[in-house]
């Protein structure tokens, strides 16, 4: 219990001691449920070596749908995917722009990408020498 309390105190003070890690940024990409999330994660892994990414299903109500909804009613939500990618601070801007380009964000219905701080993150690496899975 004392150890846990000491760790919690260190975390509250700032960067935890004895734990490997660095300040990162969390990029969230909300994209249509058309496989864009998998394509984004594949791009990051193959081109940039970023593997700290995950995606989940969610329902979204878009700005344009809200404008068309009847008063007092919520519009019909659409199925989307949220991809969350943890990237080192130094690479954040470059990867943010790469994701926006690849996901074709600047088209109607393309979704959105946003960036937020993650003050301390532990590294995530995969074992070396494992064979690639078949697609």
């Amino acid at each position, binding site marked *: 219990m004392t150890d846990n309390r000491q760790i919690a105190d260190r975390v509250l003070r700032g960067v935890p001691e004895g734990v490997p890690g660095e300040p990162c940024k969390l990029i969230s990409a909300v994209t249509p449920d058309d496989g864009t999330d998998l394509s984004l994660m594949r791009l990051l892994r193959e081109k940039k070596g970023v593997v700290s990414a995950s995606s989940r299903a969610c329902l979204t109500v878009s700005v344009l749908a809200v404008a068309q909804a009847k008063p007092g009613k919520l519009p019909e*939500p659409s199925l989307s995917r949220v991809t969350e990618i943890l990237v080192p601070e130094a690479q954040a801007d470059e990867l943010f722009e790469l994701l926006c380009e690849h996901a074709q964000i600047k088209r*109607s219905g393309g979704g*959105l990408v*946003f*960036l*937020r701080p993650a003050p301390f993150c532990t590294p995530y690496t995969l074992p070396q020498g494992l064979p690639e899975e078949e697609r």
Partner: protein
Amino acid sequence: MSKITYLTDAWLITCVVSTATKQAEKMLLAARDAGAKGALGHHARGYGERERLGALGVAVETDKDVIEVLVSTEQRDCVFEVMYTAGGLDKPGAGYMYITPIERIATYVPASVMDRLEEAGRRRGAL
């Protein structure tokens, strides 16, 4: 080729509420009425007031709705407050919500909206 428009000065309001009580819909309607544009939501599992009903005092996982709403700084406090009130989060076990800062957003902004914003910016500069 058009450039990507980046928006700053934004916040993410996240709410975790029970699915059974249908608070999420009330909170979304309140957020929309307060000016929030769009939202996203997903299911989750967690602990709540119903956990006490578990046999022998064993906690039971309850279904949760997680709602996330992106707002500007001007809207932040107003939207947060109306969502809090609409969801009845002042009652124990009703749920919780929090705000996180967003550094930058990229999304599609229609050309007509961009023109209006640029025009407003020019007018402000002329004053």
